[in-house]
Structures are given as structure tokens and as C-alpha cells.
């Protein structure tokens, strides 16, 4: 009876309830969308900030900036070439040292010994290497590695700085091993076993299976792992800053001190007292940002293609 006399009342109550739920639902969806947009905005904001703030130096110095061989803030001369060389040298030496290790770990944990306590131990070790903060690597390097390198330099009869490109590269090599290794492990495990079994059935030894089945199959993926570690090495700041010696000249040998793009920024950013100096440093950051982004995206693209196949 109540319903017939006043049907709107009941309807409204139900409607009201679902209305409020609906509002929450819409709000919730909007929040999700807003947060995803926020991510895009952060990246665009980073890019815009870097470009705007490095504008004075881009305008004043142009493209010659990257090839200028002298960096002298006192005379207002800015050339990024020494840091470019420093960054490339440290990163590539570190990469050359680390690749055998990360490949060996990937092959061992992916193929030889994927299960058991020994492989768990090694896997945890690799994860731990990635977990130790870079500042601790730098500190340890400063007090342990530097004297060792100094001894080495005495034997080679070069100036015994201790700190320099080589020392920084050594620490960097340890730090980037996990990135290539952990990716490599999962990729090698993805090799279909019929392929390997086929090779074994033909009488191939384990080495031959690894060389002619696993390696060709995972080559692109392992290369992506190397790219990702290179991206890490290029942007690594603290450990390198503490060990590279911080001189703004072009390093004459791998024993000489130098500077990387990241370490220059870390050292001189708070000291930069005029606009041009500051924006020259930010332009370094911009270059660093571009290079690491491109390297990372290429690496990620290769991995996605690999896993989709």
C-alpha cells in the first residue's frame, strides 16, 4: 500500500544509494586516470624544466658546447667534451669488465644450475650487489680500492693518483653486473627445451648446445641487458663522483683523473653562481637524460619483442 501511495519515496531511496555509489565509482575512476596522467606530466615536466633552464647555455653556446674542449667557469668558457669522454670511457670500461661476469652468471643460473641452494645463494648475492647503495661502494672504493690502484700505478710507473677513470670503472663494473645478469637468467630460462633436447639428441655437448642453440636464441635479449647496464653506468653518480678525481681536463690515460657528466653536476651544481654556468650544467643533465632515456627505451623494446616471440 505504501508503495502505491508513495512510489517515488521508495524509488528515490534506492536511487539515492546507488547514486552515491555511482559518484564514488566515477570519482575512483577519475583518480586512477588522474594518477596515470600525472606520470606523463612528470616526464613532460622533467623534460620541459631541463630544456627551459638550459636555454641560456643552448643559446649562448649552440652545438659547439658538446665539442668544446675547455671547461673553465672562471673564464666563462664551457665545453662538455672532457665530461663526454670521461662518461664514455668509464661506462665502456665498466661494461667490458662486467659483461663476462653477467653472462657467466646468466648462463650458470639459467642453464647449468637453475635450482637448489647453491643457485639460490648466488642469486641472492647478485641481488645484494644491486641493493648496496652506491654511496657505500664509493666510500669503500675510496679507502680500499684507491690504495690498491695506487700500488698498481706505481708498478706501471705512471703518476700514482689512485683515483681516476680506472678506479671509477672498476667500482662501476661491480655495480652494473646485476642488471645484465638478472635479465639474462630469465631470458636463458625461456629457451624452449625442445630446441635444446633436439641438439642433445644429435649428440651435441653442453658447450655446443650453449654456443649454437642458447646463445643465438637469446642474443638480442642479452644485448638488451647490456644496454640496460650501460644506461645505469652512464647515470651513476655518487660512487663515480667519489672515485674519479674531479678534474675538468680531458683524461690522458685510463689512470688519469677525469670527470663524468653526472659527477660534474653533483660537484658544481651548488657552486654555480651565475646563470650561464648553472645552465651549462643543466644542459649536461639534459644530454644525460636524453642518452639514458634512448638507451633504456631501445633495451626495453628489444626485451618486449623477445618475450612476445
Amino acid at each position, binding site marked *: 500500500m505504501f508503495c502505491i501511495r508513495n512510489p517515488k519515496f521508495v524509488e528515490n531511496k534506492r536511487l539515492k544509494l546507488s547514486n552515491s555509489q555511482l559518484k564514488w565509482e566515477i570519482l575512483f575512476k577519475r583518480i586512477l586516470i588522474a594518477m596515470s596522467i600525472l606520470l606523463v606530466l612528470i616526464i613532460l615536466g622533467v623534460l620541459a624544466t631541463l630544456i627551459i633552464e638550459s636555454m641560456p647555455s643552448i643559446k649562448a653556446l649552440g652545438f659547439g658546447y658538446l665539442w668544446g674542449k675547455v671547461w673553465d667557469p672562471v673564464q666563462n668558457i664551457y665545453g662538455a667534451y672532457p665530461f663526454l669522454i670521461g662518461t664514455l670511457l668509464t661506462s665502456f670500461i665498466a661494461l667490458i669488465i662486467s659483461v663476462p*661476469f653477467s653472462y657467466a652468471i646468466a*648462463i650458470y643460473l639459467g642453464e647449468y644450475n637453475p635450482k637448489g641452494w647453491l643457485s639460490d645463494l648466488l642469486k641472492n*648475492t647478485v641481488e645484494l650487489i644491486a641493493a648496496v*647503495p652506491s654511496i657505500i661502494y664509493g666510500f669503500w672504493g675510496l679507502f680500499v680500492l684507491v690504495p690498491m690502484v695506487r700500488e698498481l700505478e706505481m708498478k706501471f710507473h705512471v703518476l700514482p693518483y689512485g683515483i681516476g677513470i680506472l678506479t671509477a670503472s672498476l667500482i662501476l663494473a661491480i655495480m652494473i653486473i646485476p642488471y645484465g645478469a638478472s635479465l639474462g637468467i630469465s631470458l636463458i630460462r625461456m629457451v624452449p627445451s625442445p630446441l635444446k633436447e633436439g641438439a642433445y639428441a644429435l649428440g651435441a655437448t653442453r658447450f655446443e648446445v650453449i654456443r649454437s642453440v642458447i646463445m643465438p636464441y637469446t642474443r638480442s635479449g642479452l644485448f638488451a641487458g647490456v644496454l640496460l647496464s650501460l644506461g645505469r653506468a652512464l647515470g651513476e653518480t655518487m660512487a663515480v663522483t667519489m672515485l674519479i678525481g674531479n678534474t675538468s681536463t680531458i683524461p690522458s690515460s685510463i689512470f688519469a683523473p677525469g670527470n663524468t657528466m653526472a659527477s660534474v653536476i653533483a660537484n658544481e651544481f651548488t657552486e654555480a653562481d651565475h646563470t650561464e654556468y648553472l645552465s651549462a650544467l643543466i644542459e649536461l643533465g639534459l644530454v644525460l637524460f636524453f642518452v639514458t632515456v634512448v638507451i633504456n627505451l631501445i633495451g626495453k623494446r628489444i626485451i618486449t619483442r623477445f618475450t612476445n616471440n
Partner: protein
Amino acid sequence: MEARIGMRNIKSNIFKGIIVFFAFLITVPLVIILLYIIKQGAGQVNWKFLTGTPAPVGEAGGGIANALVGSFVMVMTASVVAIPVGMAAGVYLSENPRTKLAYYSSLCVDILQGVPSIVVGIVVYFWLVKPLGTFSALSGSIALAIMMLPIVIRSTEQTLKLLPDSLKEAALSLGVPYHRVILKVTIPCGFAGILSGITLSIARVIGETAPLLFTAFGSPFVSAALGKPMESLPHLIFTYATSPYDDWHNLAWGASFILLMFVLTLNIITKVITRKWKIQL
């Protein structure tokens, strides 16, 4: 024929030997580093070290309370910012994988993961430090939050994608509104995975120094004010390690030991969570 198969087997074994050698050689530097830090740092840690502020140059002793408080405050603030944002974005990415927005924000997560931490420091300097006119713990926290985001997002996304669709469908068919399905069914089911992502991200940013150099800057006082400069463990290690004084080096060793313990504990917690709930990150 016999001889050749013998040669091939020998070659195979030599190769295995090389692989095992290189694979296990990597434990050597890690063990050396850990032992060295423990040897130098563990002896420094006592009550006064944990509760005191750094002593002036030339005086032995002193503590790192300012850095402990600072690291704690900044990492907490960063988590408060990064966890909700990261989880929301992660939910969006796992729920709508095919939209245009999902493509772009996923791309941005990839980019963010590769951005050098020093660049984050520069950018936050211009976003917060310059407009506010002072180095502040807030700007440091925001920089750390940006570093945390990709890990939180990816772990949320990946965990939720692994959940069976039937779970969500069952809840939806009962007439439960969408937001309640996400908050009460999907997220609780994937909670362990998300949690391990969160601990992992905290473990990563607690040792970050580069983004703090131009944002939180450092300060010799114990303070919890977000608007003022603040010390942090990694920054304290950096300043003291590069100083020429032995007393300060000792402080830095102690601080390194504490930082290392934090990072190890957080990693072990992550391990335990992932093992208990059998998650793959």
C-alpha cells in the same frame, strides 16, 4: 671418432669451469665490501652514536641522530606521496592495458626507471627549492618519491595482472560497485606483491644520495621540519667520507654500517614476503 668426442667433452668441461669461475668470482667483492663495512662500522655504533649530533672537527665521538631522523622523515614522506599515486597508476595500467593513456603512462614508467637520480635532483631543485627559496626536506622527499614511483607502479601492475579475472567478475556480478571491487577484492588479493614492491622501493631510495644533494642539502641539527634543510644517512656519509678528518671518517663508517643494515633488512623482508606468498617480481 673416439678422440674427437673426448676433445669435445673436455672443451665442454673447460667451458663449464670458466662459467662457474666467473659466476662465483662475483661473490668475492661483495663479501669483501660487506666485511670491511662491518669491521669498520660495527664498533662505532653505541647509544651515544645513535642519539648524539655530529661533533665539531677535532673532537672524537659524536652521533648521527640528525641523519637517522632525517632519513626516516624523508623516506616516510616520500612513501606517503609515492605509494597512493603509484598504486592508483598501477591499478589503472593493469585494468586498462589497451588505452592510449595506458600506453603513454607505461612508456613514462619505463623512462622514469631509467632517469639518472642526479637529473631528478636537478629538476626537483627547480620545482621546489628555487620557488620556496630554501633547501628543504619536502623537496628531498618529493625527489625520493619520484624515484620510488616506477617500482611501486610496476609491482602493483604486475601483481594485479596475475590475479584471475574470475575473482573480479564474481564480485562484479554480485553487484559490488567497481571501486569497492578494486579496494576490497583485487588489492587485498594482490597485497603481498604490492607490499614487496613497496619495501623494495624503500630499500632503493633510502640509500639514494644524488637526488638529495640539491634538495634536502643536509643540516647538523636534529629536526623534523619539512620546510627546512635536513640531513640524511647517505648524504652524511658522502660529506664525512670526503672530508679529511679521521673522526669524521669513523662517523661515516658507522653510518654506512647502519645504512647497510637497513637496506639488508628491507631486502630480507621483501624476500620473506615474496617467498611466503610465492610471488615473482
